[in-house]
């Protein structure tokens, strides 16, 4: 499969759309859990912590999927 020259272009195109959607997912999921934790445990630190964790996890995932040679 990887010998097909259009595979590379396809991968790049997928990466662009997938990355955006992953970062949204990261912020929504871990940011959302952080928001809930902040409310329940009454400590505001959980919201930014969750948002950062989500963004970090999403960026790492994009790298895992598309960044490694």
């Amino acid at each position, binding site marked *: *499969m990887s010998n*097909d020259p*259009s*595979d590379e*272009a*396809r*991968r790049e*195109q*997928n990466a662009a*759309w*997938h990355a955006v*959607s*992953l970062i*949204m*997912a*990261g912020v*929504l*999921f*871990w940011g959302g859990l952080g928001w809930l934790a902040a409310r329940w445990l009454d400590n505001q630190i959980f919201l930014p912590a969750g948002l950062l*964790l*989500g963004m970090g*996890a*999403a960026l*790492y*995932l994009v790298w*895992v*999927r*598309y960044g*490694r040679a």
Partner: protein
Amino acid sequence: MPFVLAAGETEEFEAPGPADFELPPVFEIFGFGVTKPMLIVVFATLLIGLGLYVAARRATLVPGKGQFFVEGLHGFIRNSMVPDTIGREGAKYVPYLFTVFVFLAVLNVSGIIPFVQFPATSRIAYPLVLAVISWIIFNYIGMKRQGVGGYFKNMMFPPGVPKAIYPLLAPLEFLSTVIIRPVTLTLRLTFNMFAGHLVLLLTILGGEFLLLHTQGIVGITAGSVSLLFGIVLTLFEGFIQLLQAYVFTLLSAIYIGGALTHEH
């Protein structure tokens, strides 16, 4: 409105808003109100069906204008979009993608066709249903090709990651594929059409108001500029409408391609 007050007018300009998309029923069938977007969808469907039927039926070796246009459009999906996104197995999905593209293009462009001038796709139900169909198709293909377990395993657990990190990553892939994809497909199209139509309403209705319902040179100048701007924006909106139909189709194709060959 400073213009209006300066001209000594008491008439108020009513800015267009979301209420302009809540159209009253044109007529009722057994108490069921039929609205303009519904009529647009029905007529668009008939028009597309008839147009494609005629173009295909009278197909000749040397194509006429209609056949040339339809073949060009179909060829673009089959020979350019599908090979770039799905690859060699793509032929099977060309009919669906072609249908979606033509249907959406006509429904979107209904926003700038004179006297119709309402993008049916600015009502969320139409993009939503199409997004759900695309969603069902790519998930079904993925599960059929990779097995139900394999599909979710390939989706959520990319290889080469320390096991301890999976709880952090797996929900993101799941959310991204299963929830965010259909939601963004729907919202991207709906709100592009919604916002585009709103901008046209504002420039054209505002221009009309300034030109006809205010006095003085300022109102006439501003109104003319606004109307001219409205015409330019109408052309630009036509481009966006075709572009959004293309983006919806392209993403559907990318999702199908991704379900067929999971990435490593």
